[in-house]
């Protein structure tokens, strides 16, 4: 059983709190209620520690993500809804399963859903190096990646957490700088957005020794950008999913993971101790992890598409999401996005199919380095079209409509759709 490190500090909205001071407010409904707590990041940290202390069966929902649809879904699932800042009305509820914590998937796969975990399955950093760190919490509260950081500061000595009050990335960065955070875990989109908004110098005001990427596929251009900004930091990336748990942690600064980590078949039991089973079948990654969610055992399909490049296996996106279909031909959106995103002057991109009255065509939204737009958007379109062709995108799937955005359209979950 994991044990709280009561003297660890968690910085909430600029104020240092010990773990000992958190999670002391009794949650409504008695021990028998499943409870959904809705609040700001600080309230949710307090509630999460309370879940642990009181062996409560709960879920966390940040303000802003508390849509009527989601609240109805939580009520339907038997949760008593709790807003710590409001007077409470009685809510119907169902009996809880003590010690269970439900994680909200962050929505990149569509409608948010609840994935049941335990504190044991959420706490995966059992082999973290012992160096004291002050982590900047960038993920949306209540998501799997957010619990990864929270459990680190709850259960590992010397691991502190900085929890910014405001959700926008600029405020998160400022909170990290103010609190002297020396470790950051964030999505690639978080970094891409901030790189465009505040530039290399703005990012360099933070001085992390550890930079960890997760929550989305991690591509080489983002790793290279972070290496330039933080030349002395250890840069790691994690592949994980809410259902399968943590799959892969890579520290060598290269996208993907070594192909030698793959098991040749799903009957294989040859994965080394401490590393999950990994297998590729029909371009999809399969995982067998001891950190999987409740009820998940053995190999599960990740739903993520991978490509093998040389000796590396690279996750490029969701396998069955938004296939691009033009003239009856299909290609995965992730493959085209990935090819365009490899251009050295592309900071972010997203592709989709657009329908015209005479047929469909692929469209792309791009955030480009200003150098790409120096000669106008027409020249940039010609260059990107050439690049996509030369990087293996089939002729019919090369984007025809290019829209150049000034900033990365980041969602509340710090990802892009």
């Amino acid at each position, binding site marked *: 059983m994991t044990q709280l490190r009561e003297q660890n500090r968690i910085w909430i909205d600029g104020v240092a709190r010990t773990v000992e001071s958190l999670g002391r407010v009794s949650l409504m409904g008695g021990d028998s209620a499943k409870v959904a707590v809705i609040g700001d990041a600080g309230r949710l940290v307090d509630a999460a520690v309370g879940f642990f202390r009181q062996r409560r069966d709960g879920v966390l929902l940040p303000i802003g993500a508390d849509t009527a649809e989601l609240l109805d879904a939580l009520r339907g699932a038997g949760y008593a809804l709790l807003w710590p800042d409001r007077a409470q009305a009685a809510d119907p509820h169902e009996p809880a399963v003590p010690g269970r914590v439900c994680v909200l998937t962050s929505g990149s796969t569509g409608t948010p859903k609840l994935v049941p975990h335990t504190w044991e399955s959420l706490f995966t950093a059992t082999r973290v190096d012992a160096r004291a760190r002050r982590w900047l919490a960038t993920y949306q509260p209540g998501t799997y990646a957010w619990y990864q950081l929270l459990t680190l500061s709850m259960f590992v000595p010397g691991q502190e957490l900085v929890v910014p009050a405001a959700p926008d990335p600029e405020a998160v960065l400022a909170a990290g700088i103010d609190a002297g955070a020396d470790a950051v875990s964030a999505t690639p989109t978080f970094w891409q957005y901030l790189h465009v908004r505040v530039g290399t110098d703005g990012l360099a005001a933070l001085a992390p020794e550890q930079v960890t990427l997760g929550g989305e596929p991690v591509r080489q251009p983002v790793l290279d950008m972070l290496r330039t900004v933080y030349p002395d930091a250890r840069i790691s990336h994690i592949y994980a999913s809410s259902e399968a748990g943590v799959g892969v942690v890579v520290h060598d600064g290269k996208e993907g993971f070594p192909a030698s980590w793959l098991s040749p078949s799903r009957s294989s039991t040859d994965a080394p101790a401490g590393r999950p089973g990994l297998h590729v079948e029909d371009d999809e990654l399969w995982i067998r992890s001891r950190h999987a969610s409740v009820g998940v055992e053995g190999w599960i399909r990740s739903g993520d598409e991978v490509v093998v490049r040389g000796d590396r296996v690279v996750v490029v996106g969701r396998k069955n999401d938004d296939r691009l279909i*033009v*003239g009856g031909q299909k290609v995965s959106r992730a493959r085209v996005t990935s090819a365009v995103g490899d251009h050295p002057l592309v900071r972010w991109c997203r592709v989709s199919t*657009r329908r*015209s*009255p*005479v*047929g*469909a*065509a692929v*469209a792309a939204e791009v955030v480009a380095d200003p150098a790409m737009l120096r000669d106008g958007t*027409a020249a940039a*379109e*010609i260059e990107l*079209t*050439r690049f996509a062709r030369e990087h293996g995108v089939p002729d*019919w799937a090369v984007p*025809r*409509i290019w829209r150049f955005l000034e900033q990365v359209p980041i969602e509340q979950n710090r990802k892009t759709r």
Partner: protein
Amino acid sequence: MTRTEIVETMRLILEKQGKPPGSLDESTTLREIGFRSLDFSELCLRVEDAIGRELNFDAARLRRIETVADVCAFLEGATG
């Protein structure tokens, strides 16, 4: 969009596809310049973006298009 703007958009589309037309006027046939169906889809989407709404047209007219002038007339009709 004016007819001139439509012709210039067609020129851009062809240049982007690596097949710049030597000369392009309203008498040029689509076959001569290799203006394919995907190019036409792109043109329609660009026109939609320019006028801020979706095109509305008669599919029968689409089948009779042979020249740049036909394209211009077709799109004028579809945006009208």
